C-alpha cells in the first residue's frame, strides 16, 4: 500500500525524463553507444526512403482509413457517413471473430514451423561446407517459383480426387477432404504457407550465421563442449538480431501475404473453410467492392498487428543483444 504513491511519482519522473530525452534524440537505449552528432546529415540519408513512404504509403493510406467511416459506392458517386458502423458490423459478427481466432492460430503455427525448420536447415547448411551451395541453390529455387504455380501445385497435392496426399492419407485410413473439412483445409493451408516461407528464413539465417566473425567461431569451438551448448550459448545470441527481424517479418507474412494461398486452396469460394482476416478483407473489398467495410476491417487488423509489433519490440527486443 505504502509503496504505490512512491512508484507512481517515480513513473511520472521517468516518463517526463524519457520524453525529454526522446525529444533531444537521447533515448535511454540508443541504437549505438557511439553515434554521429550532426543535425542535417541523417535527414539527407533518410530523405529518399521518407519521400517514397509518404507519397506512396501515407497519402493513399490516409484515404483508405478515411473511407472506413463511410459506406461508399465504389465508383465514387455517393458516400454516406456512418461513423463507427463499419467497425461495429465487423466486430459484432461471430463469423468475423471466428476468422480472427483462426488467424491467430494460423499465425502462431506457421511462424513457429517456418522459423524452426528454416533455422535448423540453416545451421546444418552452415556446418557442411561441401554441398552447402547446392542446398542453397535448391532451396532458393523453391522460393523463386511463381506464386500462382506454387499455389496450383499445392492445390493439386491436396486435391480431393487425385492428390497424392489424399492417397497417402487414405493409406493410413484417413479420408482427407480439403475444401470440405475445416481442419483438413487448415492443414493444407499451414503446410503450403510454411513450405513457401522456409527458404526465406533459411536465406536470412544462413547469411546471419555466415556473418559471424571467424574469430568468434573458433573461440566457440575451443570453449564449448557439445554442439548443442555451443549453439545455445554462442550462435543463438549472435543470431538474435536476425531472428528478431525474421519473427516480425514472418508474423506479417502469415497475416498479410498468405491470402493468395487461401484463394487457390478454397478455389476462390471459402464456404465454411478457414480463412484469415486479410482474406476476408480481400473478399469483401476487392471481390465484393465493399470499400467502407473492408477499410474498417483493415484498420482493425492494422491496429492488432501494430499492437503485436509494439509488444514484440517492448518485450522481446530487450533480450536481443546487439554486438
Amino acid at each position, binding site marked *: 500500500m505504502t509503496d504505490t504513491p512512491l512508484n507512481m511519482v517515480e513513473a511520472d519522473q521517468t516518463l517526463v525524463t524519457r520524453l525529454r530525452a526522446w525529444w533531444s534524440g537521447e533515448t535511454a537505449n540508443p541504437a549505438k553507444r557511439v553515434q554521429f552528432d550532426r543535425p542535417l546529415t541523417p535527414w539527407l540519408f533518410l530523405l529518399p526512403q521518407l519521400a517514397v513512404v509518404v507519397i506512396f504509403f501515407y497519402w493513399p493510406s490516409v484515404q483508405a482509413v478515411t473511407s472506413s467511416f463511410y*459506406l*461508399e*459506392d*465504389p*465508383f*465514387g*458517386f*455517393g*458516400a*454516406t457517413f*456512418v461513423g463507427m458502423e463499419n467497425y461495429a*458490423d465487423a466486430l459484432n459478427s461471430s*463469423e468475423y471473430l471466428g476468422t480472427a481466432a483462426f488467424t491467430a492460430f494460423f499465425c502462431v503455427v506457421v511462424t513457429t514451423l517456418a522459423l524452426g525448420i528454416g533455422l535448423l536447415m540453416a545451421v546444418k547448411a552452415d556446418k557442411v561446407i561441401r554441398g552447402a551451395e547446392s542446398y542453397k541453390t535448391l532451396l532458393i529455387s523453391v522460393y523463386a517459383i511463381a506464386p500462382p504455380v506454387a499455389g496450383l501445385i499445392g492445390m493439386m497435392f491436396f*486435391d*480431393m*480426387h*487425385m492428390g497424392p496426399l489424399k492417397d497417402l492419407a487414405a493409406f493410413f485410413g484417413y479420408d482427407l*477432404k480439403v*475444401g*470440405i*473439412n475445416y481442419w483438413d483445409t487448415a492443414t493444407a493451408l499451414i503446410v503450403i504457407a510454411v513450405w513457401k516461407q522456409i527458404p526465406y528464413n533459411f536465406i536470412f539465417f544462413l547469411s546471419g550465421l555466415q556473418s559471424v566473425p571467424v574469430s568468434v567461431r573458433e573461440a566457440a569451438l575451443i570453449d564449448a563442449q557439445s554442439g548443442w551448448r555451443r549453439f545455445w550459448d554462442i550462435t543463438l545470441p549472435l543470431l538474435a538480431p536476425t531472428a528478431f527481424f525474421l519473427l516480425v517479418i514472418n508474423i506479417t507474412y502469415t497475416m498479410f501475404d498468405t491470402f493468395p494461398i487461401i484463394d487457390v486452396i*478454397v*478455389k476462390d*469460394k*471459402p*464456404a*465454411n*473453410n478457414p480463412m484469415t482476416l486479410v482474406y476476408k478483407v480481400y*473478399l*469483401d473489398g*476487392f*471481390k*465484393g*467492392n*465493399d470499400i*467502407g*467495410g473492408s477499410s474498417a476491417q483493415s484498420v482493425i487488423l492494422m491496429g492488432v498487428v501494430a499492437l503485436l509489433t509494439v509488444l514484440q519490440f517492448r518485450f522481446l527486443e530487450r533480450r536481443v543483444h546487439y554486438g
Partner: protein
Amino acid sequence: MFKTTGMAIGSMLLASTAFAATDITWWHGMGGRNGEVINEISQQFNAAQDACHLTPISKGTYEEALSSGIAAFRSGEQPNILQVFDAGAATIIAAKGATIAAEDLITGAGEEFNRENFIAGVRNFYADSDGKFIGMPFNSSAPIMYFNTEAFEKAGVQPPKTWEEFEEVAPKLKEAGYLPMTASQLTWMMVENFKSRNNQQFATNNNGYDATQGTEIIVNDENQVMMFEKLKAWADDGLYGFYGAGWADNLKPFEEGKAAMWIGSSGSFGGLQKSADFDFGAGFMPYWDSIEGAGTQSFIGGAALFAMAGKPEEQNTCTAQFFSFLTSPETQVYWHKNTGYVPITEAAYEMAKGEGYYDEQPVAEVGIQQLMLETGEWSKGYRLGFYPQIRTVMEREFNRIFSGETEVKAAFDTIQQEGNALLARFAKTAN
C-alpha cells in the same frame, strides 16, 4: 501459327494506316483461349472499318477487371468498354453516371437497336426495370444437365426432365454402379436457377430491379428449403454427391465416369469432350413438376460489356459501332463456336443452325434452347447489391448443411438474415 503471324502482320499494317482512326479501349477479364478470341474479334472489327481502332487489354480476372475499372474511373482513366460479370452487375448499374446505357449509346449514334432481336433469356438480365439495355450482354451461358449416355443405358432409364423423374431414376442409376448426380456451384444452380426454372420470386422490389432501397432477398421460403432438404436426403442416400464449393471438384466424378449426371454450364461441353472418354449428352436443368408454373427459362451467367461514361462523343460513336458489330450474326457465331458461350441474338442462333453446327454439336444447342423457353414473371433476372458476399454466405451455409452441422431451414434463415443485412448496407452506398 500461321494464323497468329498473319494477324500480327495485319495489325501492324493497320496501325500504320489507321492514323486518322479514333482509338477506343476495352478492358476484359478473360484469359486462355477466350482471351485470344477477344483479340481476334477486335482484329476483325478493326479490319472491317477505318474510322475506329479498338484495343482490348486483359485486366486479369473478372474481379480484377472490375476493380481496375473502378480505380480508373475514379481517376478519369477509365476505358471505353468494361466487362463486368453477372454478380457484379448490380454494383455498376447502381452507380448511375458511371456508364451510358448500351441502348442509349447505340441509338444515340444513329445505329439501329431492337430488343426483340435478342433471345429472351438475355433480354432482361442487364437491363433496367423498363427493359432498357444498360449493359450489352456479351458472354452468356446457362446451367444445364449433362448425362453419361452409357450410364443411363445400363440402368435402362431416360435422363430426367423434372426432379420428380430424377427421384425415380436415381436409385436405378445407383444400382447400376453410378453416383446418380453431382452439381457445380450450388448458388448458381440450386438457388438462383432454382428460382428461375421454377418461376419463384428471389427478392422484393421486383427481384431488386425496381429499387435498391428496401430490397430484401427471399430464400427461406417453403420451396427453396424443400429443394435443399431433398438434396440433403439424396446425399444421405448416395443419390447425390456434394464435393464442396469448388467447381472442378464437383465436375471430376462425372469426368471420371463415376457420376451419371452433372449440373454444369452450357459452355462446358468443349472441355468435357477432351476430358471425358465416354459419350455424353445434355438436357435442360430439371425443375419441379409439383411447383405451379415451373419450367420457365433460366438466368444467364457470364458477363456483359458496359460503356463507360465521361468519354468524348466520337469515341462513344465508335463504342456503339463496336456493340453493333458484336451483335452481328457472323461475330456471334464465331464467338459461339470458339468459346462455347451461347449466341445472344436469334439471328445468330438461326445462322449457326443453318450452318449445321448443332448437327455436329447437339450439346451446344441445349443452353440456347433453355434460354428461349417461356419467360416467367421471376425468370428475367435479379439485381442484388453486394451479391458476391451473399453468395459467400450461401456457400458457407451449404457446406454446413451437407456436413450435418446445421438444418436446412436454419441455414436458409441465416442466409436470409445475413443477406438482408448486406443488402441494407448496399442501399446506403447508393446515390
